């Protein structure tokens, strides 16, 4: 328990350091753009592939579980849309990004720590926490909602294709279903979750990397911890946010 509180305290101290005034905002702007490409744009591929197959599976499973003449077939499209918007695109994408982006951030910052690059920054009078972590947080906060939107669109397209190609639903019914009783607030809910998850993934992973001491073995451990802790926190905050925003 004491160890947990100590780590929590160190995490908030790091966050305080991260959100201090940058030395030269123009440099941070460039760095943020760079991180948006590195952490965000480069994740479009994996998010699209996963979302496509996720949408396909959701449609097929919904179809096989609602094989009853009482239920109109367009409900398959509706179920696919709501599952993707409410849960899969924000939460599953965040878990995937925790693995891809989180481990990347922890190992990059951890390697910089053990090779004294962070010390070099500090010695130049640069706030290393702000310089290394703030652009990553900003980049993911800006880009991850876009990834979620891509995931929603690709997921629904995947669902539509799988449904029509397998013959469980016609394209017209699917399109009717995804338009039926649409609640725009669900998109807001999904975006709020995405922003919180983006912050958790980046800050927790950066924290793990920033406090590495030792060698390459510890960098590997930090990378693993970054993925594990971010994933657990994503699931925990998923419950909290769902209760707060949908109840």
């Amino acid at each position, binding site marked *: 328990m004491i160890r947990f509180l100590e780590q929590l305290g160190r995490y908030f101290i790091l966050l305080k350091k991260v959100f201090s005034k940058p030395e030269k905002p123009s440099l941070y702007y460039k760095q943020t753009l760079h991180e948006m490409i590195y952490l965000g744009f480069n994740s479009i591929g994996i998010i699209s592939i996963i979302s496509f197959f996720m949408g396909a599976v959701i449609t097929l499973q919904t179809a096989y579980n609602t094989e009853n003449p009482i239920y109109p077939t367009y409900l398959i499209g509706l179920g696919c849309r709501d599952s993707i918007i409410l849960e899969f695109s924000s939460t599953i994408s965040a878990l995937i990004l925790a693995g891809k982006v989180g481990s990347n951030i922890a190992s990059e910052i951890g390697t*910089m720590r053990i090779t004294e690059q962070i010390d070099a920054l*500090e010695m*130049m*009078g640069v706030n290393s926490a702000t310089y290394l972590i703030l652009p990553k947080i900003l980049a993911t906060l800006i880009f991850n909602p876009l990834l979620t939107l891509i995931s929603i669109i690709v997921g629904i397209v995947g669902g539509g294709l799988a449904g029509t190609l397998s013959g469980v639903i016609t394209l017209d019914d699917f399109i009717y279903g995804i338009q039926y009783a649409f609640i725009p607030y669900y998109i807001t809910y999904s975006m709020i979750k995405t922003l919180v998850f983006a912050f958790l993934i980046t800050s927790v992973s950066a924290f793990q990397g920033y406090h590495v001491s030792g060698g390459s073995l510890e960098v590997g451990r930090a990378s693993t911890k970054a993925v594990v802790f971010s994933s657990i926190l994503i699931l925990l905050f998923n419950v909290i946010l769902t209760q707060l925003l949908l109840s």
Partner: protein
Amino acid sequence: MIIAKNIDKSFNGKKVLDNVSVTFEPGKTNLIIGRSGSGKTVLLKSIVGLHDIDNGEIWFEDVLFNKLDFKGKKDIRRQMGVLFQGSALFDSMTTEQNVRFPLDMFTDDSLEEKNERVNFCLKRVDILNANKLFPAELSGGMKKRVAIARAIALNPKYLFCDEPNSGLDPITAILIDELIKEITEEYSMTTIVNTHDMNSVMEIGEKIVFINEGVICWEGNKSEILKSDNEILNDFVFANSLAKQLRSSQK
């Protein structure tokens, strides 16, 4: 002038520096020598503020450095250049970008002015035609030179070098030592070099401090070091058999 007064530093209850007091002379190449694990790097990192000391005082001229807040330390650190043991060049940046980094961060010069300074610094350390190379494409000696170029980019008042020639062949090591000495004289810097290399001691040691098990055992210059009666120092200086033979023939 840099003064360390009664410095104590422990890690997990193990005392690494024990009441260390030493004065580093301005405009000179000051050397901290000692065996591996003797506390040299901890002393150097304590002086520059990378380690918080348990007790004691660190003075840069008339400023009590270890009592300054983060912003105060930042101001003093902008007058420091540091050469780390592993060079600590930024992997994601080219040679040119590495040297330009402090200029980008702390000056409002135009890109042309910054590039001019970068080229001057790289030329000063004899790095030619490597502006676009990444650290992974440089040899160990080149990395050290680029790190020196980066350290002097902002014309620092103090230069700190942690094992500048570790992992280098003897000839390259001497070239790096000479470069450090030349730059120290050229810019009238106060330089502190951490080393266990006796070649460095004999090449550039204007003031030498010998540390053993966290305690300062001896202070002097390179001519005095060969005549010292300090047994621990002599064991270190005349460690190899050839040096031992020379020592006994002198006696």
